[in-house]
């Protein structure tokens, strides 16, 4: 899922300067799962904004805040209620999708961090940098593009120590993990290959599955 964290409330207040009536848009998907845009967090944001003197005209909680068609319908009541600005409690994709659907300003309540894994409630790890050509089959299911601080494609640099990364010693060296995993799988020969380097990928990308099906 997309992992986000809440911005400091003062930053949200600063963006809302000059605004009186605010509408809130959460997300039942990723932002709920990482506890930054679910029903509870939207309620807390409402209370905090009201305590700061704003009028919260409504809260909507779409199944996916990044679904443009879905949002077109869901946002109507907020605009109708006279919201002068909306606060998005989703990820960056959700926030932009909200903004594409309305003519009033939309402000993010969250900072979007990464595509990640939930280790357990409240603990998330970055797992995928969406490089566009998955190499996990070559690397024992461990992503060097994401888990190596330099996204190296030919094995580790000289900077690992006791299996830890020099960039952040809290992190494991991805290539040591890959080596151990490939060894356990009997696939150590895969270490001899150079992986494709996708660092020059152009963005933004678009995928059209409908076209492909035709």
């Amino acid at each position, binding site marked *: 899922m997309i992992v986000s964290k809440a911005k400091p409330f003062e930053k949200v207040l600063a963006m809302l300067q000059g605004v009186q009536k605010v509408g809130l848009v959460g997300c039942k998907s990723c932002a709920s799962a990482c506890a930054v845009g679910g029903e509870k967090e939207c309620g807390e944001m409402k209370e905090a904004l009201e305590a700061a003197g704003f009028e919260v005209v409504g809260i909507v909680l779409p199944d996916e805040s990044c679904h443009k068609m879905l949002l077109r319908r869901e946002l109507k009541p907020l605009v109708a209620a006279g919201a002068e600005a909306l606060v998005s409690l989703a990820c960056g994709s959700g926030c932009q999708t909200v903004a594409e659907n309305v003519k009033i300003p939309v402000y993010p309540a969250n900072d979007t961090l990464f595509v990640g894994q939930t280790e357990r409630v409240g603990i998330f790890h970055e797992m995928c940098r969406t490089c566009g050509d998955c190499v996990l089959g070559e690397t024992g299911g461990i992503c060097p593009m994401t888990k190596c601080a330099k996204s190296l494609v*030919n094995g580790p640099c*000289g900077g690992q120590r006791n299996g830890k990364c020099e960039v952040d010693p809290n992190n494991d060296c991805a290539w040591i993990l890959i080596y151990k995993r490939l060894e356990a799988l009997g696939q150590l020969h895969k*270490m001899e290959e150079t992986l494709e380097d996708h660092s020059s990928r152009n963005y933004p990308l678009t995928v059209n599955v409908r076209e492909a099906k035709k």
Partner: protein
Amino acid sequence: MSKLQQAFSAGAFALTAEMAPPKGYDFKEALETAALLKDCVHGVNVTDMQSACLKASSLGLCIALKQAGIEPILQMTGRDRSRMAIQAEFLSAAAFGIDTVLALTGDHPTVGDCKSSKPVFDLDSVGILKLLGNMEKNGTDCGGNALSSTPKFCKGAAVTPVYDPLFLQINKLKKKVDAGAEFVQTQGIFTVEALETFMNEVLRNNIKVKVMAGVIPLKAAGMARYMNENIPGIEVPQAMIDRLAAAAEEGKEKGVKGLPMAAGIDMAAELIAEIKSRDLCDGVHIMAIGAERNVPVILQKAGL
């Protein structure tokens, strides 16, 4: 053919020394130091913002060295440059007669002194070597377009002999050599045993490459302890640290300065002499870390 290549092909014990450009634009001191090295090494290896700390560029000082009649080795990391920028640097280097290069992945900006600099790492060390190989073979740039003239370089890389698991260094070394590395310089080693273990693996894997053992002359016990704690791949034995500490103690008693530095010079010379006498590898690369002026005396004491 570069001086270093000539040394390799003549089977001579190859010698290089490393130096860093200044953190500024006045090359006077660097050129004076390099002039001292000119006649005792086969090449002066210029670092590319080593430890990710900002300095004048390697290419800049290499050009200045070349113009002063000193043989430079251009270090090139992938940390701060895309493949386009890397290839452009190599073409400019060739225009100034620089013919020997060392490809490195580079330290991450977060370990250096400009931590918010964007890490590039478009190509790692192997990728840079492949870029050069493709250019030389096909006369093309990184986009496959023809170059109007194509240089050829003597290509080197780095390797860390004290590494767990060593398999990973050997595996990557193979890739570097396959990609065209003719020589490698090692991370600083402090015992012949460490070098021997590594060389045995190189031979066992039948890797055909000239190996230059990295030698770091120690200046003080504190420096050795610091490197042991902070620099991956560095293992200074306790006996060496004790010898530096004893020299400091002796200096204090006698009121003489510079004894630990002198002990470091002696130890580096002893190590180099033993590497050469036992014919363990093809040469040494001295990383004096700011004390390059000591290199001639180290080599002299080593009998070179």
